[in-house]
């Protein structure tokens, strides 16, 4: 399978590596033409405002939205913010394809970043790394919650779209990538 990773800013190399470890071809996506021929796309962690600005200036919003509307796409942390329809406290969104309301930096500053462990879909004891993480405050009826930490929604799926507020790419555990790509 050929899997693209949006490579404008952030931890895209970690996702490329995870995809390669699973035996797939990984490609950097920096412009519209890089989307051609991809079977799945990953939007990485990083700074969502920085990525958002670069998306806008490079006229990538429509091509990314078209891709995410039809093909398997997963967003992690900042990537989840890029996918969300509603960003709490803001009037604009980025791709706006995933019907969730998400809050930026919901836990506070870097001093509030933390690691945990939990169940993601059918994956048990999954390592959860939260770095200045957002929080999914609500989801529409069409969105399935696949992971929670206490009461917090930390992972969702809606048909071809997957999103989580933690960083599976920052661990050696590739099970979530594998699960996403199995469904792709």
């Amino acid at each position: 399978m050929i899997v693209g990773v949006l490579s404008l800013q952030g931890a895209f190399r970690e996702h490329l590596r995870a995809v390669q470890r699973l035996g797939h071809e990984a490609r950097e996506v920096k412009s519209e033409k890089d989307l051609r021929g991809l079977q799945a796309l990953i939007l990485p962690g990083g700074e969502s405002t920085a990525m958002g600005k670069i998306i806008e200036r490079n006229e990538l919003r429509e091509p990314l939205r078209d891709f995410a509307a039809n093909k398997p796409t997963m967003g992690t942390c900042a990537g989840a913010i890029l996918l969300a329809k509603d960003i709490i406290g803001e009037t604009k969104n980025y791709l706006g394809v995933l019907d969730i309301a998400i809050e930026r930096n919901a836990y506070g500053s870097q001093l509030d970043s933390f690691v945990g462990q939990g169940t993601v879909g059918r994956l048990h004891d999954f390592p959860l790394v939260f770095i200045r993480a957002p929080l999914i405050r609500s989801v529409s009826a069409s969105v399935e919650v696949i992971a929670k930490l206490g009461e917090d929604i930390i992972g969702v799926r809606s048909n071809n779209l997957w999103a989580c507020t933690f960083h599976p790419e920052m661990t050696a555990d590739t099970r979530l990538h594998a699960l996403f790509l199995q469904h792709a």
Partner: protein
Amino acid sequence: MRTELNRGLAEMLKGGVIMDVVNAEQARIAEAAGACAVMALERVPSDIRRDGGVARMSDPELIIEIKQAVTIPVMAKVRIGHFVEAQILEALRIDFIDESEVLTMADDQFHIDKHKFEIPFVCGARNLGEALRRIGEGAVMIRTKGEAGTGNVVEAVRHMRTMLAEMRRVQLAPDEELMTLAKEFGAPIHLLQEVKRLGKLPVVNFAAGGLATPADAALMMQLGCDGVFVGSGIFKSSNPARRAAAIVEATTHYADKERLAHISRGLGTAMAGLEIARLETTFAERGQ
């Protein structure tokens, strides 16, 4: 665990531009241009250079104002060895501390024991030994020192090339030679072993000190830096918003010459630069 999380935040900044800002308005301009973080300070390095006197940590009031203005991570500088300034910044709950040679040194022998802190630290380095000593002290991110406030990229290039050449030496050295190399570099052996295994520093490595144009940013990225700091180069230029956005674009598309040509057009005047040989003070020599 804290170290992993803090190294993780540094990883999230990769491919991005960290911009010096002196007030909330500049912070908003930086964020709108696509900065991945801002460095809150009272004076940019070129003004520190011009004004002289002792340069210290910024007023917490200013740092809080900047923190409230943006959602991206906020960094601030402390003097080398000034662990109380670091305690204060940790209490302000900013995201990252730069133990920086741009400020006047508080301790001319010792750096801060950064392991004692929960908050992540970035430190400057001119060569592999300095970088690994700072990592040994607990830094989770390294940047070239370059020569801040000059608008002259030559020192950043020298520092990056020096680190790369020394890392190549480590990689080629047989294991039994590493201890002697550790002695030569003045660096912990376990970190040299890690460099040999990874072929790079064990933490994120940014360019800093004298970058003024999109081409400077792309040059440092092509040399192998993970991202860039731009200090005086943005807000001392004639059109900061436009130049800031252009440097962000150049850092993303650093290997694409057609795009770089397009990005570099019509940005107005870059900051006036300084020749290194004519400087009264070289910041890079502070703290080794």
